[in-house]
């Protein structure tokens, strides 16, 4: 058995560094906290969407062949980091992931239902997808479903596109995520079948993986901003005559938040790169990135609230807003148990690999 080595290089290119700088500046200017708050309860700011349209944010991570700028999943993740850092009320990631899924049909000149590609590409028609659709029958909660007019889903082995002429009403939630119930049987919903069989399964699998990576990246952004807010607070706040950051009980929590930030960010980037460049190698990485980002953002934003003491639980505190966003954004895809189920792919692969070598014979020999 020959050794199998891989590169392990996380460094970003200069262009990727510039993309981060551009996005950070744009969101700081266009999506400060008062804009985020004013966009509630819907959690979507049409003005910010227009800014995204005018600044080309919708096409950064789309292939050139279908009218995009040629960026890939890493660029999409970098965009997600910045959206999360700003808690930006924008349905961009769901829209772009769905565009990317439809792009494979468009480039093969296959129809995409009643949706006009150019209008979707321009962001005049907002798209989304239903990540839990393959597990549920009937109605389901759709992320960005209250602002999207077309939703990609996978039902009964078919890739379908649901469309509406009016917005679906938002289902209220504490984080003010623009989620809504969509039901294929609803008379206001039109359903078109886009693909079936292996093609449908393949497109859906990749779309679902990309959705997990994109959503994970937005959670990483929430996490990083929360960590920064908590660190700054702990450096300023005085108790017993010193800044509270001097107490290990506080500073070690801040370190734990930092560890969650770094591992979630690195894993999301690694998953993005490998899903893009070698989709057949370790297909569970997208679910791993999503699971890690979910559990990290939940425990760490909660810890960041706690570091603020009583201030943290007031609605006026920025940290409580990040906490609310984290609670909603992290679970719209079905939660960590679903991710773990997907990671099961890796168990089966590893079991198969081990059954093909003798390396484990010695281990198995003491088994009954």
């Amino acid at each position, binding site marked *: 058995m020959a050794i199998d080595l891989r590169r392990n290089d996380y460094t970003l290119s200069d262009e990727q560094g510039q993309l981060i700088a551009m996005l950070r500046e744009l969101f700081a200017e266009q999506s400060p906290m008062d804009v985020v708050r004013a966009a509630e309860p819907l959690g979507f700011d049409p003005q910010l969407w227009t800014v995204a349209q005018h600044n080309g944010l919708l096409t950064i991570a789309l292939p050139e062949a279908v009218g995009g700028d040629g960026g890939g999943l890493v660029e999409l993740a970098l965009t997600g980091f910045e959206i999360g850092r700003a808690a930006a009320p924008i349905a961009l990631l769901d829209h772009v992931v769905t565009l990317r899924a439809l792009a494979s049909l468009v480039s093969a000149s296959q129809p995409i239902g009643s949706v006009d590609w150019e209008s979707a590409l321009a962001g005049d028609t907002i798209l989304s997808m239903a990540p839990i659709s393959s597990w549920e029958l009937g109605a389901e909660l759709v992320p960005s479903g209250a602002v999207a007019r077309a939703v990609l889903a996978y039902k009964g082995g078919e890739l379908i596109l649901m469309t509406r002429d009016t917005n679906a009403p938002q289902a209220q939630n504490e984080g003010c995520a623009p989620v809504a119930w969509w039901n294929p049987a609803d008379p206001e919903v039109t359903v078109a079948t886009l693909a079936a069989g292996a093609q449908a399964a393949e497109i859906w699998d990749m779309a679902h993986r990309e959705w997990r990576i994109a959503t994970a990246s937005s959670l990483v952004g929430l996490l990083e901003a929360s960590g920064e807010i908590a660190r700054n607070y702990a450096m300023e706040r005085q108790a017993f005559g010193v800044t509270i950051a001097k107490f290990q009980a506080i*500073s070690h929590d801040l370190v734990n938040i930092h560890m969650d930030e770094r*591992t979630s960010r*690195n894993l999301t980037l690694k998953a993005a790169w490998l899903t893009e460049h*070698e989709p057949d190698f370790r297909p569970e990485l997208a679910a791993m990135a999503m699971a890690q980002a979910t559990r990290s953002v939940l425990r760490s934003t909660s810890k960041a609230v706690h570091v603020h003491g009583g201030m943290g639980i007031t609605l006026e505190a920025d940290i409580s807003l990040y906490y609310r966003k984290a609670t909603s954004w992290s679970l719209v895809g079905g939660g960590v148990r679903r991710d773990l189920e997907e990671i099961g792919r890796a168990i089966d692969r590893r079991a198969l690999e081990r059954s093909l070598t003798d390396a484990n014979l010695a281990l198995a020999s003491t088994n009954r």
Partner: protein
Amino acid sequence: MDFSRLELTSEQSAFEQEIRDLLEAHWTPNPAHIALDHDRSPEAVRLAMAKRGWVHPKQKPEAGGAGLGEVEEEIITELFNEYFIPNNASSDLLIPTLERFGSDWLKANVLPGIRTGELTTCLGYSEPDNGSDIAAAKTRAVQDGDEWVINGQKMWTTWGNESDYVFLLARTGPIEQKHRTLTMFLVPMDAPGVEASPVWILGGGRTNVTFYSDVRISDDYRIGGINEGWSVMSEPLATEHGAGVVTEGVVPINGSMGAGFSRVFSKLIDGAIDWAASRTSADGRSRLEDPLVRIALAEAMLDLEVCWNAEGELGKPMAAEALMANADRLADMAAPEGILDFGVDGSIAAGIIASERQHAPGSAVYGGTTEIYRNNIARGLGLPRPY
């Protein structure tokens, strides 16, 4: 960014085969040996590696190495792991310090053997009354003409019974002046008055308490200036902690100890999968299909991947804590057989999971506690030195 597969050159493939041949010639794989991150490399393997410059493979041949790159270094690491052989023969933490601060005599007579790996070293920092608080050391070195006389005790001198030299921190002035009266020495372990006595730890491993009774050594063994030991020691300590790791994009990012613990963790998962594949549930299906087993395995695999993504100094606390939590998780998954020792009828995965449950708590202590790591990481974040 690049995570693509490395196509080995024909030279690298030949190198891989040479290492395999060497390991197979000198060592019988022992799948029950799981303290790979803790135990010293077997002497026969180390000497064979030293002969070829492979103990510090990236050093230039004139500096005792083989002038190889990160790929070859990673091949060595991976193969030691595959063969269940501890890969702890290196003195790479100390070599830069000896080069910079060592006396001319040390550089001429001892450093060459340390560079090749023919000579081995261990660390003498902690004492019975101080561990993490290194600057409270009491072991005293008193100058007597051209010699020093050392008296005291050191704790946790892991490999002290099988090393040629100890990198010793000693007090050379009033103890009240803490880190301003410390001096470093390289003390031969066979000097009269040095004794290493075993301390057996959870999981069956060995460390030592070392006694220094009127040990006389020449001033040539001093490293750096008198009372400048704190700065001499700080560099290797930071390197051991994985700070400032710069890779060429091949070796893992999670620091030296973090990566070592992660490799052990990976073996536990392999063992747990083998166990599940070999067992049948009451309904006749493989335990690999049991949702309870799958959730435990999936969580373990997720935690392992997270460890590989914890860079530098984050690697050790992350991996030590994941190792403890998951040794318990996997033993629980395979309970009650999960508790059985190596060689016992029905023990799972050659007993490595049970063994690692005993060994894992040490991983959060040796080489610096996870609390000390968090203090260091906090300072790296710009937070004040914590209480």
